[in-house]
C-alpha cells in the first residue's frame, strides 16, 4: 500500500511528472505556479534530469520543442499570461507532431489580470490557442490526487497521439494541500518514436518540421493531426456524473468549480430539488455524448465556470438544441459561492424553462 502524503497541488504535479519519466523541465516563473519549477529545480538533478530556467516563456516552450524532438519526456508549466506567450511554440509543436506536457495554473485575465484562480483560459486551451488547425488534449482535474493520476498518464497519451497534453488547473488546485497517494514510478526506458532526431547513426537523416509549402501536403498533415484527435475522442474522454439520472437541473462544471457544485447538488437534494452534476475531466476532447444523452430527458443545464462563459459553448453544442442551457459564472479571480449557485438552481427548478 503506497503511503499517503500531504502535498501541495503544484508540487504534486511536479512529483507525478518525475514518476512518469519526465527528466527535462524548461520554464519561467509566474504566480501562482512557481512551486512547479522550484520543485523541479530540486528534484530533477536527483534523478539525473535537467531543470533549466529559460529567459522567457517563449524560449522555454522552444526548448521543450527541441527536447521533445530529441526524444525526451519533457514538460513546462506556466500561468495564463505565460501560456499566451507559449502559444507560438505550442502551435509549432502541434504542427511538428511532437509530444510534451504543459501545465497551466490559470489566473484571472485578460492582460496581466491578477493572481487569483480563474477558468478563463478555457477557449485558449481547448480551441487551439495558437495559430492553425489543431487541438490539444486537455484535462481539468478537480483534486490533487486526480491531477497526479492524470499527469502519470499524460506522457503516454502525448506520445500516442503525438500532441502536447495540457493540464488545465487553476490557482486553487495549484496552491491547495491534500492527501495524495503517488503511484510507483513508471518503468522506463520509454520507446522512442521513429521520427526522433538524435543523430543519423546508420540510418537516413530525419527532419522535424512544421513547414509545408505545398498546400495539398499541409492539408494532408492537418488531416493526419485531425484523425489522431478523432481517435482521442474515442479513447480519452473522461467524465464524472453525479445524481444525473432523475435530475431536473444538471450542473456542468470542471476543476475547482466542480468541487463547489458538488456541495450545491447535495444542498439542493436536501431541499428536494432534483439536481445533478456533470464533471468533464477531459475538456478536450469534451464529453459530448454524455451531455447529449442526458439532454434527451430535457433537464435544464447550468454551466458554472470561473469565466464569463466559455465552456458553456461546448455544453450548448453537446446539448445540440435538445434542452435549455443556462450559465452562471464569476470572473477575474472571484470564486463562485455555493449559495449563489444554489439560488440559481432554485430559480431554474421553479421556472418553466424546460424545453
Amino acid at each position, binding site marked *: 500500500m503506497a503511503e499517503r502524503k500531504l502535498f501541495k497541488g503544484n508540487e504534486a504535479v511536479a512529483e507525478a511528472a518525475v514518476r512518469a519519466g519526465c527528466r*527535462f523541465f524548461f520554464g519561467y516563473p509566474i504566480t501562482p505556479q512557481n512551486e512547479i519549477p522550484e520543485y523541479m529545480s530540486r528534484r530533477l538533478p536527483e534523478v539525473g534530469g535537467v531543470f533549466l530556467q529559460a529567459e522567457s516563456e517563449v524560449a522555454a516552450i522552444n526548448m521543450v520543442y527541441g527536447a521533445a524532438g530529441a526524444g525526451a519526456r519533457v514538460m513546462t508549466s506556466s500561468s495564463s499570461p505565460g501560456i499566451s506567450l507559449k502559444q507560438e511554440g505550442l502551435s509549432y509543436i502541434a504542427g511538428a507532431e511532437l509530444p510534451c506536457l504543459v501545465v497551466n495554473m490559470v489566473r484571472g485575465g485578460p492582460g496581466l489580470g491578477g493572481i487569483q484562480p480563474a477558468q478563463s483560459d478555457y477557449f485558449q486551451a481547448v480551441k487551439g490557442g495558437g495559430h492553425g488547425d489543431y487541438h490539444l488534449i486537455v484535462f481539468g482535474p478537480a483534486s490533487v490526487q486526480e491531477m497526479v493520476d492524470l499527469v502519470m498518464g499524460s506522457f503516454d497519451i502525448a506520445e500516442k497521439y503525438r500532441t502536447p497534453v495540457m493540464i488545465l488547473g487553476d490557482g486553487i488546485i495549484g496552491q491547495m494541500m491534500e492527501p495524495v497517494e503517488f503511484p510507483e514510478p513508471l518503468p522506463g526506458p520509454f520507446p522512442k518514436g521513429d521520427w526522433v*532526431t538524435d543523430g543519423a547513426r546508420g540510418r537516413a*537523416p530525419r527532419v522535424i518540421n512544421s513547414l509545408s509549402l505545398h498546400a495539398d501536403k499541409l492539408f494532408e498533415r492537418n488531416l493526419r493531426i485531425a484523425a489522431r484527435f478523432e481517435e482521442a475522442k474515442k479513447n480519452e474522454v473522461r467524465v464524472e456524473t453525479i445524481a444525473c439520472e432523475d435530475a431536473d437541473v444538471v450542473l456542468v462544471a470542471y476543476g475547482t468549480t466542480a468541487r463547489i457544485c458538488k456541495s450545491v447538488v447535495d444542498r439542493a437534494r436536501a431541499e428536494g430539488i432534483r439536481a445533478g452534476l456533470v464533471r468533464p475531466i477531459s475538456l478536450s476532447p469534451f464529453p459530448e455524448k454524455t451531455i447529449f444523452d442526458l439532454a434527451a430527458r430535457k433537464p435544464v443545464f447550468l454551466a458554472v465556470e470561473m469565466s464569463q462563459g466559455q465552456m458553456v459553448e461546448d455544453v450548448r453544442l453537446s446539448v445540440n438544441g435538445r434542452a435549455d442551457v443556462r450559465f452562471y459564472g464569476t470572473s477575474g479571480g472571484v470564486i463562485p459561492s455555493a449559495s449563489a449557485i444554489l439560488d440559481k438552481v432554485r430559480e431554474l427548478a421553479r421556472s418553466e424553462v424546460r424545453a
Partner: protein
Amino acid sequence: MKQVFSIPESLAPRLTHYCPGCTHGIIHRLIAEAVDELGVRERTIGIAPVGCSVLAYDYFQFDMQQAAHGRAPAVATGIKRVLPDAVVFTYQGDGDLASIGTAEIVHAAMRSEKITVVFVNNAIYGMTGGQMAPTTLVNQKTTTSPYGRRESHAGKPIRVSEMLATIPGAAYIARVALNSPANVGRAKRAIKKAFEVQLAGLGFAMVECLSTCPTNWGMAPHEAMKWLEANMIPYFPLGEFRTAEGVASNG
C-alpha cells in the same frame, strides 16, 4: 584518375533554390565540409531557420529540426541538454538572430550553451522581399526604408559579433565574409573552429558570415560582392572578437 574535389557526404547531392549570387550555398558547403572533416555527421543535429534558408534541411545529410523565427538557440538548447554528445548547430539570418531572436541568442551565449551558431548577415530581409533588417546599413534602401535607412529614425545597424563578444559565456565569436576565395577559406576555418569549440566543450561559438542578396539589393552577383566589400566590411569588420581560454587563435 585522382579525384580532387567532390560533394561532401554531409551535403545532399541536389540543386538548391537559392538565387544566383547568394552565398547560402557556399556556407552550406563549408558547414558540410567541417562536419565531414570532424567525422561527426552521424551525431550532428542542425536547426533550420525561418527565411530564405528555411529549407536548409533539404540540403544536409544529417538530422535537422526546423524552428520558429528567432527561436533556434532555444530549440538547440533543448536538444543539447537532452543529447549532450550531439553536435548541435543553428543556422540563422539577420532577421532571425538580430531582430526577433535577440533574447534567445544573447541568453544562449550567456549560459555558454555548447552549441555552434552560423549567423548569415546580408543586411536585408531576403525571403519576405527585401525589407529593412537590424543590420541594414545607414542610407541603404530597402522596401521598408525606401528613402534609405535614416539613423535618426531607425538607429544604426547592430553589430552582433561585437555585442556577443562582451558576454563571458561566449567561447568563440568571429566575423567572416564570403566575397573572395581567400575570405571563403577564412570562413571555412572559422566555421570548423566553431564546431571544434563545441566538441571540446568550451562553450558557445558563433561565426557571423557577411553575405550577399543580389535579388533584393537589386544588383548583379559580381556587383553585390563588390558592394559587400565596399560597404559592409567597413561597418562590420572581419576578425575574431572572442577566443576564450583553450581556443586557439586563427592568427
